[in-house]
């Protein structure tokens, strides 16, 4: 393992460099050997984030490999959602926030001066904790992203909408009522609708912020099945407070604590033989 041995709360956790190496080594070298062979879709390099005067994230550096599921776990308030939102610059809409460090999408800095945020957000989609369908019809919800980004001529819309709904395993349930209001769907269906809406624009990366936390176990199961299917086409990052879920759906897991990245490794390794003691404490605390 070329990972550095990290002492507790050492801020350079997750760095690909053995201790002592200068920081100018390019950050695109995958940290975890098992990532080699997969293209790195997104990565962050020493990301620091501030809400006004308060710092929330310290020196986060990690890589997201293509067409895999990466889970972010950690206790409440550890910064995993904040970090997720940095990836598609959703934190920009909060006033007084500040970012230091880089976030790269396919090697390009998303915080760079030439970045088109609107395009970024189409390429890096997001599904939220509480489903937020628009008060429009089911069809219009799914078509929304297509329309505003000009991704499909009008004639193609129904086809694209159907494709997205199938991908979200919702088509059979709603195909007869596409014109009815989305607000009439159940909670689980609404969340799958939001997933359909997000995948309709064919993002490259799909960010999911605790997508199942408001759902019952059956709906949760359906969404997890969905994630298994979706990862064939999309790179997925999922924030979850449920470790069993992380273990079930992800290939890689990153453990956050108090705004720092403590450990990032293959899921099976992290859960069976974690490198850090705090990770072990956290995990065993939950698994009981």
């Amino acid at each position, binding site marked *: 393992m070329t990972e550095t041995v990290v002492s507790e709360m050492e801020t350079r956790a997750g760095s690909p460099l053995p201790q002592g190496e200068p920081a100018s080594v390019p950050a695109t070298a995958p940290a975890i050997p098992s990532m080699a062979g997969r293209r790195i879709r997104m990565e962050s390099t020493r990301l620091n984030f501030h809400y006004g005067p308060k710092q929330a994230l310290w020196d986060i550096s990690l890589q997201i490999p293509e067409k895999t599921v990466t889970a972010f776990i950690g206790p409440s308030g550890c910064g995993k959602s904040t970090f997720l939102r940095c990836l598609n*610059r959703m*934190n*920009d809409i909060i006033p007084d*926030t*500040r*970012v*230091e*460090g*880089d976030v790269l999408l396919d090697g390009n*800095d998303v*915080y760079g*001066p030439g*970045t*088109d*945020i*609107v395009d970024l957000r189409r390429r890096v989609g997001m599904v939220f904790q509480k489903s937020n369908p628009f008060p429009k019809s089911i069809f219009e919800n799914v078509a929304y992203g297509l329309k505003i980004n000009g991704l499909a001529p009008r004639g193609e819309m129904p086809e694209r909408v159907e494709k997205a709904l199938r991908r979200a395993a919702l088509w059979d349930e709603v195909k007869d009522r596409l014109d009815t209001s989305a607000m009439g769907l159940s909670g689980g269906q609404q969340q799958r609708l939001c997933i359909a809406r997000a995948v309709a624009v064919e993002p490259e990366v799909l960010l999911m912020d605790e997508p199942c936390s408001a759902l019952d176990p059956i709906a949760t199961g359906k969404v997890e099945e969905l994630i298994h299917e979706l990862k064939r086409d999309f790179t997925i990052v999922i924030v979850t407070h449920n470790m069993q879920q992380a273990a079930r759906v992800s290939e890689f897991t990153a453990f956050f604590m108090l705004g720092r990245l403590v450990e990032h490794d293959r899921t099976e390794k992290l859960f069976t033989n974690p490198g850090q003691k705090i990770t072990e404490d956290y995990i065993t605390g939950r698994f009981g």
Partner: protein
Amino acid sequence: MQTPSFRRSTDDRGFRLGTGFFALLVVLLVAGIFFELYRTSHLSLSKFGLRFWTAKTWDPVSGEFGASPFIWGTLYSSILAMLISTPIALGIAIFLSELSPRRLRTPLAFLTELLAAVPSIVYGLWGVFVLVPIVRKLQVATPAWLKKVPLFSGPPLGVGMLSAGLILAVMVIPFTSSVAREVLKAVPASQREAAYALGATRWEAILAALRFGRTGIIGAVILGFGRAVGETMAVTMVIGNNPQISWSLYAPQYSMASVIANEFTEAADNLYLSALIEIGLVLFVITVIINAISRLLIWSVTREVKARASKPVPTIAYAAPTGGGK
């Protein structure tokens, strides 16, 4: 590598500036009214100065422009209206927010709001043909000894300060009561509960709520006063339109808004017009000040509540029938 503060895409800036421009228009509108009025009344302002507001005779035909009767008329009629309407409006507010059975609340509230929806001209019409004859009968029936009191002296014309005060009172009641009701709604239930827990009677618990919201209630009353000051049509039709200063309720008098309404189109020369506009300018400034004070008072109650509680507090006085005189 350090990246400076977060970047916005250019269309975000465009959106902010674009919509901000329209918001700016609102501010410019108010500023514009002030400057426009100031500009067009300049002739009168520079010619008469402060004498305009101390002189007592208004006789434009012979060139005398004394506007103090109008201030008198406006203040008298508005204060009279507030004296009559405030207890009633507060009673309604208390009844609707604290005392009435739930089922009655909406229909009763709706009915009092209906009072506010009646256009001013309709009140004026009713005032001229129904209220004034009644008042005249009342005046005729006043015992002789009472007529000696300056408050009740003068011939029984029907039109005059009393009619104006009554009609203004009716028009202001729904306004004050609806704002007061919103203030009372914003008072947290814990205030009343604390009183009850100490063994208070119904009224005493209500008093506790009133005490908490007292600045807001005062604000509601002042807001109503501002409404009365600006009221035009109904007052014009029943006040008698006589530019005299009199303590008598029975005497026909004149208000600032009324003289503008009546004489604006008759004003033959620029000086006359400018004098009328000056009256309008002062009316504007007075109502702005009154509104500003009352909004601040009302706002201080909601701010206090927000500071104490964590649940959202309704914004006050947009449910209220709004607006100055009609």
